[in-house]
């Protein structure tokens, strides 16, 4: 459903992603892993249209979207949970959700919100609270919920697990599993390969903006070199 061909992207003269090719299958979870500064965020921000593409191509369902404006990508079904959550801190949970559904007809809002609350009941209890005063876990739920309000077909999540306790991560991962079952494709950015392998169908390891390993999750679990290099002490 999403295909990158020889994608290069960066900031001004600096290139953060070098000739990256990958394909995310429909209703699957694709994990992009790597160390700090590997270019994970740059990759998904380029797909979302926020980082300049310097070469190569981004295709969604076979259509070239490399030059499409951001708003059009959202209405085509790409939603983003950005790094650091980036909620509208002064606005209520309700308003954050509403704004997330901006690209969809307003009459669908109540239904979309009900779906999000069903997934994250905690948000339903806090609809009128300012987003900035939520706990870290609740904020991450809201960040995902806000993206889901756009009814995406491709959800890109940048580091769900960052700063969360295992229980909160489990809630978010369970949501991602459910989305996959509902037919949504998920492009997941994670620093920890071990965590990503819990839910990923496919993994790509980035190093200095280049893909150094790519394959299915089973292969990753079996490949000793991969385990050695990227999963460190967490040997299975």
């Amino acid at each position, binding site marked *: 459903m999403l295909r990158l061909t020889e994608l290069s992207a960066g900031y001004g003269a600096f290139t953060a992603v070098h000739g990256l090719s990958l394909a995310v299958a429909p209703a699957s979870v694709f994990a992009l892993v790597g160390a700090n500064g590997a270019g994970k965020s740059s990759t998904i921000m380029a797909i979302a249209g926020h980082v300049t593409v310097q070469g190569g191509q981004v295709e969604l369902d076979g259509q070239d979207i490399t030059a499409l404006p951001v708003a059009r990508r959202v209405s085509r079904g790409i939603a983003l949970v950005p790094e650091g959550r980036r909620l*509208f801190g002064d606005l209520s949970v309700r308003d954050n959700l509403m*704004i997330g559904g901006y690209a969809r007809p307003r009459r669908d809002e109540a239904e979309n919100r009900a779906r999000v609350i069903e997934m994250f009941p905690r948000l339903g209890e806090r609809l009128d609270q300012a987003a900035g005063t939520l706990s870290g876990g609740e904020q991450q739920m809201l960040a995902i919920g806000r993206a889901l309000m756009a009814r995406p077909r491709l959800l890109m999540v940048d580091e769900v697990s960052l700063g969360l306790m295992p229980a909160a991560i489990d809630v978010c991962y369970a949501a991602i599993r459910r989305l996959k079952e509902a037919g949504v494709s998920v492009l997941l950015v994670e620093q920890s390969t071990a965590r990503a392998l819990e839910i990923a169908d496919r993994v790509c390891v980035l190093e200095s903006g280049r893909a150094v390993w790519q394959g299915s999750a089973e292969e990753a679990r079996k490949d000793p070199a991969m385990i050695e290099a990227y999963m460190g002490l967490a040997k299975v």
Partner: protein
Amino acid sequence: MEYEITLMTLAGIAVIAALGLNLITGFCGQISLGHAAFYGAGAYGAAMLTTNGVSFWLALPAGALVAGALGLVVGLASLRVRHDFLAITTMGVGFLFIGVVRQQDALGGEMGIYAIPDPGLGRLGYMVLVVVLAGLVAAFSLYLKRSWMGFAFDAIADDEDTALMVGIDVARYKLAAFAMGTAIAGVAGVLYAHEIKYIGPDSFGFPESIAMLAMVAVGGIGSVGGVAFAAVVMTVLPHWLQVVAEYKLLLYGALLFAVMRFSPGGLAGLVRSWRTRAGGFRIAATGKVEP
């Protein structure tokens, strides 16, 4: 009575101008230190027409159009600047406007334009027109606030980059805010010109821009009722108290600073926090009564 009518008319005009700025600064979060330029553009545009025999009723929308078009251009030019830089840019626009007007003999130069014809509604009739228009602008503001566009403005005011990430066409909404807000300022300018019957470069200078921004800040960024209330009080007060008139710029500047520093929500914010606090007490009180 005559005096009260004049005061009421001027207050209504201030409400319109301040609510226009409130769309840009309050709703959409884009600071403007040059709002008087658009107020002036409307006034000059309409005065040029009516002094040449065009009907006031045509000049009114024409003034709004001139100001709104200018606002759109300034908005386009300011799309890439934010925060303090936007403040400086809009301030520059204000000075540029005054500079250009002073140099243009066609616009009356230093002398300004006088003998602006009376719209012929009578003092009271004109006041009613102003008050009705102020009410319409307030109603429009309230409607806008609850609309889809209002939510997009909220998002942009809160965090522009994130607004872009959720797919909001930030540039388009900023331009819309600028165009609407400045067109409304233009309406206020037309009304002002035909109330005072004289306009000159000094009628639309930096002090006026500061006064308008102070009205928006004191009233509570974004709050329609608060801003309207502040605009009325801050227009009427200098006429009642000589001291306020003499030190207007100083006072309003200090007020602007004090609000930003001590109560960023303005009057509306104070009332809100006071209300929540009162509510808190009530809960505490009932808690005590019940064993």
